[in-house]
């Protein structure tokens, strides 16, 4: 296990901003894409 | 010569027509009738290979036109609503280029006679943009006078915007072409344009089921 504690884990060796910036945006993108898919699916349903 | 089997065409959401079938033998003269929006223009464009049908097939001398391509197009003259004339070129230049493109290069004399026959002798060398709508239509139709060898003529509302003299001249041209062994498919809204006795009539509204527009 690389990290002693949670704080150390989030600090990420001083580079937390970049690592969590990358992963945060990645999961935001995935969430946005799934949300857009759901919206589009409902819109297609209503237009019948 | 031309067989059409259960042609279907949809534009966007709407089915224009379905199950359109007919055949046209040599010396065939076919008047495609139908109200506005019944798909006359789309049908003609599919017949000449410009548009694509959703179903069905068009065969020329037994071969599907989709496979024949240039061999079929060399034998077809299509005139749509657009006059296919360049405004910056004169009627003479336009006609000469149109014939070369169609694979039937002509001489200057033949071009002059064709334009004369449509009463365009005076303005043959003016740029087309200087001509009136009727004159433009006539210079577009002038290519028919030079398309004797092309067996199949497909004309979309050829009589529109024409004066009486031009209508009768066009009628004689069409009849001469048909008696000479060619075929003509045309649409028109003028009833008295061509005497109905020798014309096959195909009414798009009656035959094909379609979605209400």
């Amino acid at each position, binding site marked *: 296990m690389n990290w002693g504690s949670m704080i150390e884990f989030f600090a990420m060796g001083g580079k937390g901003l970049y690592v969590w910036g990358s992963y945060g945006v990645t999961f935001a993108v995935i969430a946005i894409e799934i949300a857009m898919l759901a919206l589009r699916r409902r819109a297609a349903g209503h237009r019948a | 010569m031309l067989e059409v089997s259960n042609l279907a065409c949809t534009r966007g959401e709407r089915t224009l027509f379905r199950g359109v079938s007919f055949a046209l033998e040599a010396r065939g003269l076919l008047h495609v009738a139908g109200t506005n929006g019944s798909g006359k223009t789309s049908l003609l464009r599919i017949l000449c290979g*410009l548009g694509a049908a959703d179903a069905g097939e068009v065969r020329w001398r037994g071969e599907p036109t989709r496979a024949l391509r240039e061999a079929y197009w060399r034998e077809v003259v299509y005139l749509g609503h657009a006059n296919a004339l360049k405004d910056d070129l004169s009627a003479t*230049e336009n006609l000469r280029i149109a014939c070369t493109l169609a694979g039937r290069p002509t001489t200057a004399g033949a071009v002059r006679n064709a334009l004369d026959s449509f009463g365009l002798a005076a303005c043959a060398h003016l740029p087309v943009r200087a001509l009136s709508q009727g004159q433009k239509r006539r210079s577009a139709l002038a290519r028919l006078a030079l398309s004797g060898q092309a067996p199949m003529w497909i004309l979309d509302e050829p009589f529109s915007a024409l004066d009486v003299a031009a209508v009768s001249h066009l009628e004689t041209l069409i009849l001469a072409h048909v008696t000479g062994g060619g075929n003509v498919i045309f649409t028109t809204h003028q009833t008295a344009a061509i005497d109905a006795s020798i014309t096959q009539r195909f009414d798009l509204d009656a035959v094909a089921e379609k979605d209400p527009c």
Partner: protein
Amino acid sequence: MLSVMRNVIARDLTLAWRRRADVFVSVLFFVIVASLFPLGIGPEPKLLRVIGPGVVWVAALLASMLALSRLFADDYADGTLEQMLIGATPLSMIVIAKVFAHWIAANLPLVLIAPLLGLQFGLPADALAVLALALALGTPSLSLIGAIGAALTLGLRGGGVLLALLVLPLYAPVLILGSLAVEATATGMTAQPYLLLLAAMSLAALSLAPWAIAAALRISYE
């Protein structure tokens, strides 16, 4: 077949000649865009010499793209393009003739003017010669690839900007190689490999693009 192509080329060139103003407009656009950069970057000669090749190439690229939207649009509007689609000659041959005529009317003037612009950026004489040569070798593939975009966006609203979005990423290789050729000459190295590559790309485009352009035109008409 060749006579038809000759006729189409003659037709398009007479049309371009009768509308000479359009040719001057795209050349003026080329000159103005290239002249704006020093205003933005400053007159310092050493710096201008470094950015010169790139600036002239980007300006030439934009000017040639400006003229593209008219390649098929006029013929589409007045119905002559329709007749070409059902002509006796294969469409890809007619397309080659049209793009060649377009290249002469729109891109050749740029190739001739470019050395003058190069002077503005203080490029040495041999670099100017290579600039014109690189443009002459590179612009055919610009016209051919651009013609694919023009055919795809035929009759669409917002065609000009959409055409730029489709075509500019595909122009990147020509831009890179063209600027490298001029920069190599300006810094005393040989530009031969880049010129050969530009010529190769134009030949590849000449052999592949006409099919795609013809297909795109037919799609636009279906």
